[in-house]
């Protein structure tokens, strides 16, 4: 029997913890039409995200990993409603959201905040830390009524991202801060809205090794203290293992595997996840002898304008079967751990049995 799972993958916590969920979300970007297309009246789209479903829970970090260009940032932006999804629904506390600017967008912002990938680019170089934070507080009505209240709120914010004493930072410009400090300010700004969900788009990939850890620890600390639901986007699967509760693996705009972080990293099920895990640098595999497994996939990531039919990984997949190029695999239970699933025909139990 095909054990098709309902999205989101069930975890250990019960469903009342779900804050934000995406169901069947797709995002297609129209691309510039060529002269021939104008004649033929066809339009092309980048299928940046196709039919993605998952849920974010209170006090829970969900990591989303995948290679560059697999659509991770796009998912985050759609979740933050910076882009409108092409299809699918986003639910906040079970209510479908449809916000187009204005007051309702602000209300949504209050609940869902995003931290951008690049701490050097996401703070306006001409505004001070104080300005950034005050605006965020004001917009969401957390600035208090008096000056003193506002100052107190600012200090609380900076303290919550461990930038103390606050007065050392408040009047600094972004260029006077280190990368880690900037990222903390960006996080503080997101926290100023007092959100329930934090969408962190590769919050550390631009940071130096020694600073990364601080920011990640901070996020984890926030999750615990404020019971935030965090979406942690990265392409560094090792940090996802270390930091997240569960992991979603994206490939070419689709989520191909999900499960709790330890399981996904230690016993990856989907061939792509395996490839990802095997490719990650591993100090224990010593000195040049990159005894890469024979079955390791080669080739280039697929075009997102005309993605491969069936399973999008099949052109690179060492285990590709006939049906892989025809039919898109549904979420199939892997079976080793509860909640671990993969979108791969290999785990279609009856068929595997039939094949053997």
């Amino acid at each position, binding site marked *: 029997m095909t054990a098709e799972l309902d999205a989101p993958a069930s975890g250990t916590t019960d469903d009342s913890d779900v804050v934000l969920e995406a169901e069947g979300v797709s995002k297609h970007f129209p691309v*510039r*039409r*060529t*002269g*021939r*297309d*104008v004649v033929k009246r066809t339009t092309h789209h980048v299928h940046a995200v196709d039919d993605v479903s998952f849920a974010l829970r209170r006090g829970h970090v969900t990591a989303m990993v995948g290679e560059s260009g697999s659509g991770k940032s796009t998912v985050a932006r759609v979740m933050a409603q910076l882009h409108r999804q092409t299809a699918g629904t986003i639910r906040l506390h079970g209510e479908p959201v449809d916000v187009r600017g204005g007051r309702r967008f602000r209300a949504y912002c209050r609940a869902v905040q995003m931290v951008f990938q690049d701490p050097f680019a996401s703070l306006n170089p001409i505004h001070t830390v104080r300005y950034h934070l005050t605006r965020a507080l004001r917009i969401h009505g957390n600035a208090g009524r008096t000056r003193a209240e506002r100052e107190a709120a600012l200090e609380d914010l900076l303290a919550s991202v461990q930038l103390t004493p606050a007065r050392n930072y408040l009047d600094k410009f972004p260029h006077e801060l280190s990368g880690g400090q900037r990222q903390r300010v960006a996080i503080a700004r997101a926290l100023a809205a007092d959100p329930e969900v934090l969408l962190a788009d590769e919050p550390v990939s631009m940071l130096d090794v020694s600073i990364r850890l601080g920011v990640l620890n901070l996020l984890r600390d926030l999750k615990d203290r404020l019971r935030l639901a965090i979406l942690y986007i990265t392409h560094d699967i090792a940090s996802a293992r270390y930091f997240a509760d569960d992991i979603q693996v994206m490939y070419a705009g689709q989520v191909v595997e999900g499960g709790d972080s330890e399981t996904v990293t230690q016993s990856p099920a989907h061939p792509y996840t395996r490839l990802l895990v095997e490719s990650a640098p591993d100090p224990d595999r010593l000195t040049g002898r990159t005894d890469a497994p024979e079955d390791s996939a080669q080739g280039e990531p697929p075009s997102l304008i005309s993605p491969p039919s069936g399973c999008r990984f099949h052109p690179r997949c060492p285990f590709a079967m006939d049906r892989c190029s025809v039919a898109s695999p549904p979420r199939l239970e892997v079976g080793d751990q509860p909640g671990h699933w993969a979108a791969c025909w290999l785990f279609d139990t009856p068929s595997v049995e039939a094949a053997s």
Partner: protein
Amino acid sequence: MSYLLRRIGFYLFTAWAAITINFFIPRAIPGDPVQSMVNRAQGQIDSNAIHSLYVLFGMDTDQSIFSQYFEYLGQLLRGDLGLSFTFFPTPVSEVLGDSLPWTIALVGLTTIVSFVLGTGLGVLVGWRRGGWADLVLPVTTFLSSIPYFWLGLIAITLFAGDGGAFPSSGGYDPGVTPSFTWDFISSAVLHSVLPAVTILITSMSGWIMSMRNMMVTVSQEDYITVAHAKGLSERRVMVSYAARNALLPNVSGFAMSLGLIVGGTLLMEIVFSYPGVGYELFQALGAKDYPLMQGIFLVITLSVLVANLLADVAYLALDPRTRREG
């Protein structure tokens, strides 16, 4: 290709808008061609002649400005630019035919030479940053800040006065007739030296500056360092790697300036009494010669647009990144 299609649509709109503005704005000037003509004669034309001039110019009928406008558009579509008032009844197209070649030959050539020389110098100055090359900059800055007419007049005084080597005005010797003879060509060339040199002096520095800046910017690109690392000869790195890339932004500037050839030389032609379009435009403005003004503006508009289109095409040709397959 869609890029070009969209550009063309955009250009058509711009052309229409410019033509419309060119039609209405001159007509908002107080006065009319007849009065200007009488004024210019300062008493040499009798005030009794005014009526006959109105009749002559066909301005004695009351026609609404909008019907004139649509008539004008219709004329344009038929390729008819109307009759000039200043040179009544010479067709505007003939006036343009007389003056355009001069402007295009002199200014066109000068613009190209200025671009080539300026860019070349800019390449050198940008490449050999520091040292003598940096002295070029203040000098060119100063030269380019000089008002053009002033430089032209000084040049005339110095080089075209008594015993000067160059004629001070005109496109060729009064004695010769335009034709493909040595006499005419040599005289035309001689007459073009001063205007050309003064234009070069004031316009070249712009190219030098922009090319220099681009060279400096480009020469810090990684691929230049790589080219050095590859052990390529200095010349090859400078020309084929640095200059080739630095040239790209300058190309659109160059196309822009090609478009301005017709409209941008008013002062040169006034100062050097050069028989080109700019001077014609100046006269037309003073005479309120609407048809001639419109004709010249049309030429300018079209040449700017065509130049822009050329720039787009040149960019497509020069920069492989803008080329699209399929």
